[in-house]
Each structure stands twice: as structure tokens, then as C-alpha cells.
């Protein structure tokens, strides 16, 4: 008897689950069917589309140019991973991205949607040739924000075309597609892009200070630039950030010179506290240079820092450094 009861209970549960799901689907369909009048908030509350009918309804919303750009973008997002499964949808989305008559904010959202879809690499990558083909076209897009975003996507892929255009823009400002500091930042993704000689020139003759800072930041990983970095580090007229980035490079590629500089800098009362704290932190973390090897004078000086005389960061750095002494 008990066994029979259990069987009936299990069957009842199954039927109940099916009917609940059916009801939910019918409710969703009912909501989606009336999309023409749906508000933004309602659209936002909808779950991701799962059926073909839902996807098509949402795509109709996307195509409806009478709707606002954010509404259409949201409708596109709600299609979920449909574009990965249906090539026609992917092609459609690419056309939206390319269409310069569309609102640039909408196009930005479309690009973001594509970038997010790219995380599902296994299925997105079959469309990569088409995607890259369109992105390279957009390098010349009139909208600077979109252009910047597209170039960032391509730069992270070490794309030859965007590297070439960025270098051209640095050499010939009239052909620049983004600001020099942004171009340098994007080139920095690929150490094999042959940008180091150009960056060394830029450091000597920077178009602006931001560009110089970015250039030094990237040169900090170039052993061939250690001479230049040391010169920048020692120059007290240089920007703090330039000297900080230079310090990292010198520490890595010329530790002897770095130790010499560190000893002088800690003694120098006119030296920035920021730089001193960077020195202490970097030495503390550098296993190749044990804290005890810095010498008695250096360590005594560090131990003598008083809270009221130095910045909070420097005080913290000196405490950590002292803890590293045996």
C-alpha cells in the first residue's frame, strides 16, 4: 500500500511540475507577444529568450527604429546566446554595428554585446573572421568613442592592422586615430610590436605629459631602455609618475644602480615621500636584494622615520621594511 502511495505521489509531483512550467511559458509568451507596448522596465524584467518565437519577437524590437536606442539595445541583450547559434542573427548584429546612421550609443551597446558573447569562445570563434573584418573597417569610424573601443578590442588581439595604424598616428599626428597616450597604451599590449624605439623617442620629445608617462610605463619592461630609465629616475625635475615607473625598470634590469639610487634617495630630505615608499616596498618584495644587504646606514635611516615627519604611506612602507630585517 505504501509503495503504491509513493508511486502515485511521484506521478502527481511530475504532473504538477509540468503544469507549472507550461503555465510559466504561456505567461512569458503572453508577455512577449505584446512587445509592441512593453515598457523598458518590463523588458528589463523579462528572462532571456529561450524559444525561437521569443527571439524573433525581440529582434523585431531591435529593428524598430522608432524605439529608443537603449530599449533596442536591451532587446538585443535579451536574445541571449541566439546569435551564437544562428549565423543570420550574427550577420544582422554586425550590420547594425557597421551602420553609421544608427545612434552611436546603440552601436556602442551592440559592440559591448558582441564583446560579451566573445567570452563563449568555442562557439563565437567560428564568426571571428567576419567580426574582425568589420572591426577593422570601424578603425576609421567617425565616432571617436566607438573607434577607441574597437581599436582596444583589436589591440588586445595583437592585430597587425591596428598596430600599424597606431604607429602611423604616433609618427604623423594628422593621421592619429586616438590620442597619443591612448595609442601608446594600446600598443603596450604586445611587446613584439616594435614600439620600444618609437617610445624612447617619444620620451625625449613627448607630444604631452600623459603620453610620456604611458611611454615610460611600457618601457619599464624593456631591458634596452635601462639607461634612459636610470636617467629619468635620477632627474628630480621629472614627473613623479615617470620616476616611479622608471624605478621599476631600473630595479629589474640594473639592480646595482637601483640600490645606489635607493640609498641616496632615502637620505635625501628633499626627495618625494611617494618615491621613498615605492623604493622601500619594491626592496621589501625583491628576494634578490635582502633588506639586510642594504647596509647599516640605510636601515638605520628607515628605522628612524617618525610618523609626524613622513607621509602615512611612507610610514607604512618603512614598518613593512623593518619587519623584513632579520
Amino acid at each position, binding site marked *: 500500500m505504501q509503495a503504491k502511495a509513493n508511486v502515485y505521489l511521484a506521478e502527481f509531483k511530475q504532473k504538477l511540475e509540468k503544469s507549472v512550467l507550461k503555465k510559466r511559458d504561456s505567461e512569458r509568451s503572453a508577455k512577449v507577444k505584446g512587445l509592441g507596448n512593453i515598457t523598458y522596465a518590463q523588458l528589463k524584467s523579462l528572462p532571456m529568450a529561450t524559444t525561437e518565437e521569443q527571439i524573433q519577437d525581440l529582434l523585431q524590437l531591435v529593428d524598430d527604429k522608432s524605439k529608443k536606442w537603449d530599449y533596442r539595445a536591451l532587446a538585443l541583450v535579451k536574445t541571449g546566446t541566439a546569435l551564437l547559434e544562428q549565423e543570420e542573427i550574427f550577420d544582422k548584429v554586425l550590420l547594425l554595428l557597421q551602420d553609421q546612421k544608427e545612434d552611436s550609443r546603440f552601436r556602442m551597446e551592440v559592440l559591448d554585446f558582441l564583446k560579451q558573447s566573445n567570452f563563449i569562445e568555442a562557439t563565437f570563434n567560428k564568426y571571428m*573572421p567576419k567580426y574582425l573584418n568589420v572591426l577593422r*573597417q570601424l578603425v576609421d569610424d567617425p565616432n571617436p568613442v566607438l573607434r577607441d573601443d574597437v581599436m582596444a578590442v583589436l589591440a588586445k588581439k595583437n592585430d*597587425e592592422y591596428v598596430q600599424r595604424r597606431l604607429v602611423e598616428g604616433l609618427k604623423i599626428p594628422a593621421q592619429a586615430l586616438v590620442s597619443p597616450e591612448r595609442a601608446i597604451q594600446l600598443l603596450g599590449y*604586445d611587446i613584439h610590436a616594435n614600439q620600444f*624605439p618609437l617610445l624612447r623617442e617619444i620620451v625625449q620629445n613627448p607630444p604631452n605629459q600623459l603620453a610620456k608617462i604611458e611611454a615610460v610605463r611600457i618601457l619599464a619592461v624593456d*631591458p634596452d631602455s635601462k639607461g634612459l630609465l636610470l636617467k629619468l629616475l635620477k632627474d628630480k625635475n621629472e614627473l613623479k609618475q615617470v620616476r616611479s615607473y622608471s624605478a621599476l625598470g631600473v630595479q629589474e634590469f640594473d639592480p646595482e644602480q637601483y640600490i645606489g639610487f635607493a640609498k641616496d634617495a632615502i637620505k635625501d630630505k628633499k626627495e618625494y615621500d611617494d618615491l621613498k615608499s615605492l623604493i622601500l616596498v619594491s626592496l621589501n618584495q625583491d628576494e*634578490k636584494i635582502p633588506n639586510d644587504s642594504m647596509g647599516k646606514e640605510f636601515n638605520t635611516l628607515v628605522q628612524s622615520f617618525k610618523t609626524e615627519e613622513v607621509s602615512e604611506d611612507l610610514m607604512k612602507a618603512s614598518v613593512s621594511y623593518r619587519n623584513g630585517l632579520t
Partner: protein
Amino acid sequence: MKISRNSTASAQLNNISAHDTELYIANLIDAVKGDQKDQKFLLDLLKENNPAYQERSSNVVMRLRGYALAAMYYTGLPPGSLPFICAILETERTAYLVAAAARALRGAAPIKKVIPLFLKSIDNIRLHDDAITFTEYQPHWPLLENTTALNELLLTIQYYGNAAYELRDGLLFLTNNRSSDFNKEILKQLNATIDAVSVPGKTKQDCCDHYEDDIDFKPALFFNRKKELSKVIVQDQDSNDQPLTELLKDKLTVLTFFYTRCDNPLKCSMNISRLATLAHDLVNSPMNKSVNVIGITYDSPYDSPNQLIVYGANRGMQFSDTVKLLRVKEGYEDLKTLLHLGVSYIGSVVNIHRNELYILDAEGDVLHAFTHERWDVAQVKTKLEEYANRRTNEKKAHRLLLRPVKNLSKTFYSVVMPLLVALFPKCPLCWAAYLSSFGLSGLSFIPYSPWLYPMIVAIVAFNFYVIFKRAYRRKYYLPCILSGGGMLLIMLLGGLLKIHFALYIGIVFVLAGSLLNSYPVRISANALTKKSLRLSWK
């Protein structure tokens, strides 16, 4: 810049340098398309250490190589190009290069060796494909008509037709199990490719031997090697410095090159992982401790010992006296030249390199080189065993060969030297005798001089020393006694007191002692004691 399609373009292609713009080089390639006699110039552009690639970005080098490869579709494949193409299919994940390599293969009859590599290449590239064109070097985007690496690979397999029948199962697997990884166009090509290969049988194949030569690698001249290698100072992952020659001494060495900033996981990272596996396998083999397993970084300024430890450890390397990762502190250019390393640089940053692994002997001579194509642990082990056995046999043969030479040298000291001493003229009368025997014109340039006597004394003393040394070792003093006695007779009675009869007796004693000394004698254990004089003849 337009370059006319004639022999001038060929000559220019032969002289390109790092200063020429990439567009100029691309235009030269365009100019020589379709001319078979220009194959060699295109082949030179495939070489990783081509001087034209110095100070160019990796992308530019890649595109120039790819553009040259694609041109071989028109010119045909030059001899020596196959290793480059195989390496690209095996390890490259750059769509442009892979597409170019696939296209180049359609410039020749099917080559059996590359067939297994097609599926590998499809697997490498399917997540890294790109829109490509070879119609111009710097196209305008978007491309209205383009190809892709996958497309080119499939077209080439179709071109191979039933010669590539062995790929059928692999292609079916892709369409049946991995169809979601491919877009419609590629799926269509896949199906067409399956149809093309599906009819079993043999088509005419090029025997391809003349493509096999890797003309890139030439061993350096033997007589320069040790001198140049001695200039190379290396530092290992524990910051220990030593000359490379010291490390190589008395061992076979497996040597590969890598760098930690390599962004192709199928190259350096995989090579070091395999090197670690090889080192691990050798630990349990008879070759343990007699083989060095070494990786040298191309990027010594950046790859510090700390970088090397972390990089190696993350790939399974267990460091020891014979298993090391090194950077070169001095003499890198000498090493690079000696081994004709396949690498180019922008400043100190590597912009392109090939796979390369060398097996060296204790002198640093290259016994075997694996260049371009991926090597595997089993292949290297087989070669090591072969060379280790060869080395053992050579040592045995060396000993056998040396024995008569050693005996001969002993004979020289024990026989010829005393003979020379005995026969050397010691007085004016002797000189007169020699001069009359050989004729004045023969020996007239050797004058008699009183300093000759001290010279004879020195030679005699030396001869006696040699005989005594051997006698002491063998504990057999009779030859020593005879030679010594003979020498005393020659020097004192014959030389100083001019008793000629003593001179002749002395000569006989010296010769007898020398002859007796040259006979091999086995010493019994008892002979080592002062009392026992028992000896036996061999």
C-alpha cells in the same frame, strides 16, 4: 612603388635588408610571382634569421613570410621549403601564416609528409581564424572578398584528393561532433573535402625528397668551434656562472632554445615541458648523469635566473647538475653564429624564432639537429642512445688503436733514442768518419763543435731516465743496468779517455739494454717485493 617583373626584382630580393620598408619587399614579391627561377629568393624570406627581419615587429615578419609563402602558389615550392611549411602547420596559430602555408602547398604536387599535419593545423587554428587576402599586401578593410585559414586548409586537402584519404575519419569527426565550431561556409567546405578524399586509391605523388633539405642549418667549421665556444659564459637558474665548454665536458648534451615571453604556447612553453619530460625519463635510464639537458633563453637580458626558475618549475623541470635553464652572459653572438640560430630581434626582444633542439658532444660539435619541426621525447632518446653507444665503441676502438701507438712510443724512447745516442759523433775522428761516409756535400753544413759533447751528455741522461722510469715501474732492472753501463763506457772511457774499444762495447750495451727494455713484461705480484725476482714473459 611598382617594380617591373624581371630579373632586376630577383636581384633586389636577394639584397633586401632591415632598412627596406615592408611595402618595398612586398612589391618585390609581387614582381617575382610566377617565375620559377625566383623560388630561392622566396625561400630566403622564410628563414627566421634573415637579416631583413632585424628590428621589425613580429606581425610584420609574419606577414612578409606569409606573403612570400603565398607567392609560392604561383612559383612552385622551392627545395628546402618543406620544413618551414611543416613547422607552420604544426605549431602556428596565426591565421595569415597558416593560410599562406596551405596555399603554398597547392603550388606543388601532393606531398605525403604534410598530410597528417592538416588535421593538427585545423585544430590549432579553428579558434584563431581570421579574414585574409593575398591579393594585396596592405588591403583596405572591410574585405569584400576574403579567404580564411580554415578555408585554405580545406581547399588544399581537396586539392590532395584521395591522396589524403587517411584524413577522412578525422574530417567526419569534425562534421559530426564539432559542427558547432564551424560556420556555414566552412561546414560546406568540410563536406566538400570529405567527398574529395573519400575515394580510396593512390594519386600520383611527388616523392618530395628534394623538398626535405633543411638548407638553413650548416654546422660551423670544426676547428673554430672550441675556440668560439670557450667565449660563451652562461648563468644558470641558480645564478651560477660558468663557461659553456665546462658544462659540456665529458657528456652528451641536449640543448634547446626558448624565451619566457614567447606568446605561442605550442612553441617555447611546450618545448620546455617536453624537455622536462625528457630529463625525467633520463633519470631512470643508464644515461643518467652522462647527459646534460639544457635550455638556453634567446632573451638573456630579460630572463633573469628568477624568471628561469619559475618558468622551468611551472613546466615540470627538476633542476640538477645536468638539468638546467641558462642565460648567456657573454658570447651570445658567438653561440648564435656557431649554431646558426633561427631567431631575429627587435632590440633585445625576439620577433621570430623557430623550434630548434641540438644534440652536442663533449666538444660542442653538433651530432644532430631538430630544427623547425616539433621534436618528441622518444626521437631524442633514440638519438641519444645511438650516440652514447657510438661513443662507447669509439672509446674501445681508441684504446685498441692507441696500444700499438703507445708501444711504438715506448719503443722509440727505449730503442731509437739510445741508438741515436750511440751513433751520434762524439769526436773529430767520428765526424771525419761520417763526413767521408756521406760525402762532404751531404753533411758539410753540420760543423763539429766542442758543445756537442755536453749535448750528448744531456741526451744520454734523458735516455737513461726514460729507461729507468720504465724499469722501476716493471721492477725489472736488467735493461737499465745494461744501458747505464753502456752509457758510462761511451761517455767516460770512449768520450773522455778516447778508448775506442770501450766506445763500441758501450754502444752494444746501450742497444742491448734498449732492446730488452722494449719487450713487454708481465710483473707477478711477488715481483713487487724486494726479495722476489720472478718474472714472466707475455
